[in-house]
């Protein structure tokens, strides 16, 4: 079995004084693509942020790339976050920067690459995500789907070890969904990182995944390959896949 990059061990977590995740344990291995699947109130967004080390658990242990985010110093956290790319449900592009500058920001901040190399890397990512035509536009001028693709390009530009995508389907039309599936497939073929994404509806994108982590009301229902998921003996899971 390959190396573990994310481990959640009996983790419970809360948000705004409400416990949203209870006693969850699972591991994600290097190079694996995992979808956190569940309805809107299943706590998958919080689980994803725990996986990225952006939240500390109320109890239990989280380890991300051999680090414990709850006990890490600020410097260690900053170093960890350079190795984890995160796409929020909202695109969260910096509103007073062009799309190009948004994607160049982590490179300009963390590296000492010359501007020519930064430009090359940013343009490669923009082209890969299909938003190179919008590079000089401001985020407010983009559709939600394009802004999310730009946010994906920004998360990928540092070549992270782990790529986390929240609400992967949000704002995508049918064409954009196909484009995203191709991006993720290409990304995986290139031997790139572990992918963890949250999904709240049945989609062809699940076929790209190695494993699904099925969640309901903040609890783990099952983990299984996509093909076996509809067979899981749980009414929520069966309803979920029947709605396809």
């Amino acid at each position, binding site marked *: 079995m390959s190396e573990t990059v994310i481990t959640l061990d009996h983790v419970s977590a809360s948000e705004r004084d409400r416990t949203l995740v209870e006693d969850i344990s699972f591991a994600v291995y290097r190079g694996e693509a995992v979808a956190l699947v569940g309805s809107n109130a299943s706590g998958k967004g919080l689980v994803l942020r725990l996986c990225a080390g*952006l939240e500390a658990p109320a109890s239990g242990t989280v380890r991300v790339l051999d680090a414990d985010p709850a006990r890490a110093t600020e410097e260690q*956290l900053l170093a960890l976050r350079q190795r984890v790319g995160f796409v929020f449900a909202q695109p969260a*592009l910096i509103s007073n920067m062009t799309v190009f500058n948004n994607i160049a920001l982590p490179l300009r901040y963390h590296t000492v690459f010359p501007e020519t190399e930064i430009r090359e890397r940013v343009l490669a990512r923009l082209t890969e995500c299909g938003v190179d035509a919008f590079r000089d536009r401001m985020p407010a001028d983009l559709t939600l789907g394009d802004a999310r693709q730009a946010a994906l390009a920004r998360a990928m530009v540092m070549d992270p070890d782990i790529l986390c995508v929240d609400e992967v389907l949000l704002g995508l039309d049918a064409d954009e969904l196909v484009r995203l599936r191709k991006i993720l497939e290409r990304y995986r073929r290139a031997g790139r990182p572990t992918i963890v994404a949250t999904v709240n509806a049945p989609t062809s994108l699940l076929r790209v995944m190695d494993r699904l982590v099925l969640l309901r009301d903040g609890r783990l229902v099952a983990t299984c390959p996509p093909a076996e998921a509809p067979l899981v003996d749980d009414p929520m899971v069966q309803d979920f896949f029947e709605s396809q």
Partner: protein
Amino acid sequence: MIARTGRKTVEGLEFAAAVLDLGLRAFRELFSPARRGRGEVFGVITRQILFTGVDALPVVGAIALMLGLIIIIQAGTTLPQVGAGAFLAKIIELTVVRELGPLLTAFIVIWRSGTAICTELGNMQVGQEIAALDAMGISLIRFLVMPRVAGVIVAMICLTIYFDFIAIVGGFLVAKVHLTIPIQVYLEEIEEALSAADILVTVIKSVLFGFTIAVICCHHGLSVVGATTEVPQQTTRAMLNTVTACLFLDIIVSVGFYL
């Protein structure tokens, strides 16, 4: 009543501790030798100086000119009537350089830049931009707070000196229509009345006001949790708290230097 007073006191102390902590972290970052994001941070500092300093020159100039005119006309016409015409320069030095220059400049900076800083950071919180920066491993203190603090301090020093100059010279030139005193004599008297301590106090006040404005407004902007309705609420609080803090600091510095 006692419980309410106690609660308010605790809230006040918590606020002061949080602002002080943010200020100290920004101050440490200002002198940090770390190379991380130096170019980007320098860009933010430059934009802040441009917005707070350069863009404010017309409004600061206009207010300084009007204030200078009012004080010079009042003092220049009243003082000779009581046989104290020779104190015109001293009155100007006392009111403009020591007190009104730094204080009114601070108020203008609060109204223009303090509100802008608070609103910008608040909206960034709502749009998850702050969370995105954090997720990218970009230090919020280094990228957002410290450049604003440095930019506002530099702009405050320059604007206060500009305010004093316009109020003293510009005000006199406009008031010249009514006054008989020659400009050469007036400027010599001003030069005589001004001491090194006055200039030092002006600079100290500018630095303290700039630091206070930027840190308090950043604190309130970053305190927005998630709703857009919180942005104007935090901005109002930021205005009230910065004005109070600046007046409080002004009293402390004036008492410390002149009593």
